[in-house]
């Protein structure tokens, strides 16, 4: 199998983790988060810097996950106090602020980014083989899918579904909507941070542009295309939107036109995405 093909598969796996993590907020809990790439970036920079400072991979990996989750909590605290309609712009603003942080801090290397990030090390030995890396990433993705599935079926998942359908009613059922929404943010940003860590140690070099609003929208497109709320959908969406640009490389200039048109057309003709259940109203209730 060619190195290039492996590379694409690895990217698919990493973005699948990302898309699934966003799906937890958007699809499971029904909240709009447009700054998701920020968590991706935070995890990447954190893990890269930690390893550069001498930590081992496993420590850096886990720490970046937890710290990103903590930052997700920090965002959730003010963000969730505003009306749901405004969450979109607040999370977007958050994404923009984080991008600015990446661009301006010395420690993150500014616009030139972070270089010389050490590769993954397992049991003390660096992992250079793409196959091994793919295996690692897939394993983590698999764990994530299991946990997402478990969450969805659990009491937490049911609470999220109630909130997604109509949060005021959920409140009357005794569900603490604020806590559950915060939990969605924390869980989601944890996994996004882990994805970032994987990405950083794979590419050995990261810069702020990878984690911009543009990427946040790309991740959203993956979730929407695959089907909001559908786990397999997120995997599919990630696969399509990673592979397609590679296949259509000569048309790279038209990429954004494609994204924009895709989102509009999807919403008009098939808002439930590829794997979504029949009517979006069944997923989201009658709205307001």
């Amino acid at each position, binding site marked *: 199998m060619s190195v290039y093909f492996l590379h694409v598969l690895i990217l698919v796996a990493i973005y699948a983790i990302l898309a699934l993590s966003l799906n937890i907020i958007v699809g499971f809990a*029904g909240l*709009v988060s*447009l700054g998701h790439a920020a968590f991706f970036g935070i995890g990447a920079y954190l893990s890269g810097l930690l390893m550069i400072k001498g930590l081992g991979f496993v420590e850096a990996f886990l720490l970046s996950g937890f710290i990103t989750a903590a930052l997700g909590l920090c965002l959730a605290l*003010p*963000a969730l*106090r*505003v*009306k749901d*309609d*405004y969450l*979109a*712009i*607040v999370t*977007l*603003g*958050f994404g*923009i*602020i984080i991008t*600015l942080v990446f*661009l*301006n801090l010395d420690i993150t290397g500014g616009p030139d980014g972070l270089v010389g990030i050490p590769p993954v090390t397992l049991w003390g030995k660096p992992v250079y083989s793409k196959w091994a890396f793919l295996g690692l990433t897939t394993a983590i993705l698999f764990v994530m899918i299991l946990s997402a599935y478990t969450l969805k079926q659990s009491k937490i998942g049911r609470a999220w579904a109630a909130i997604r359908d109509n949060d005021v009613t959920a409140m009357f059922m005794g569900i603490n909507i604020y806590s559950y929404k915060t939990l969605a943010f924390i869980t989601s940003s944890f996994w996004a941070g882990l994805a970032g860590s994987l990405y950083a140690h794979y590419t050995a070099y990261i810069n702020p542009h990878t984690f911009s609003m543009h990427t946040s*929208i790309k991740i*959203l497109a993956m979730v*929407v295309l695959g089907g909001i709320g559908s786990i397999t959908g997120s995997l599919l969406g990630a696969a399509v939107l990673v592979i397609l640009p590679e296949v259509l490389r000569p048309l790279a*200039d*038209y*990429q*954004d*036109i494609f*994204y*924009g*048109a*895709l*989102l*509009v057309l*999807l*919403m*008009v003709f098939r*808002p439930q995405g590829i794997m979504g259940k029949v009517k*979006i*109203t069944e997923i*989201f*209730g*009658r*709205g*307001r």
Partner: protein
Amino acid sequence: MLFQQLVNGLVVGSVYALVALGYTMIYGILGIINFAQGEIYMYGAFGAVITLGATGDLSLAVLAGIGSACIVGVLLERIAFRPLRGTHPLIPLISAIGASILLSSVARLLFGPDDRSFPLEFHPSSYSIFGAAEITGLQLVIMSVSVGLMVILSLFVNLTKHGKAMVAVAMDNDAARLSGINVNNAYMITFLLGSALSGVAGILMAVYYNATSFSMGTLPGLKAFSAAILGGVGSIPGAIVGGLVLGVAENLGAAYISSNFKDAFAFIALVLVLIIRPRGIMGSRK
């Protein structure tokens, strides 16, 4: 220095207010967040720049700019929003995001990736305000145009039958229909007005910064939206206040805290206001 920053902030803020008015009207009456409002602004600027370059006639250029903005606005309403009426609000939101990307990347294709300057001669005149700050002739023009348009809009909404109809549709869609108001027309007028205002805003900023580019609308659009929310979404005075507050906050932040983070201050201001007063400065309890 402080006063100067205040003046600069108010000038930029008045332009944000114009775009914010578009957001607030569309949100108030149609219930959707038009993420692509910034792109309408951008097309307004391009319409003017290109026409001015081709004909040298400023009035024609301004009309062309407003016209382009309106055309884009109407197309947007027809294609990206009308089919989605009555759906869960997340759906038109995503559609608007897609439209925003589509519109700006099409602009990139049509007009190229580089900035264009505005081919206009300006006497660099400048006036002193109480000796504490300077305001340039251009800044004065911008503020007067913005304020003038805001006044006209307020008069339209408060005094004319069609303006009141727009408010009525925002309040109670069914009751408005039962009063004989053609709701589709009301939506169209709302979009036209909002687009025209954004178009003018785009032209003003293109002249002010002497740069027109395909991406010039994205960030100002988001900031204007923050301004609309900050001021109280659905409220016309709110959008005006919100725009001015945001412009000032942004300038003061850039001057006194960090100019690198200039873009961040708009959103920080938004979050702060929403925490203290969740419905915005002039928002109504609904």
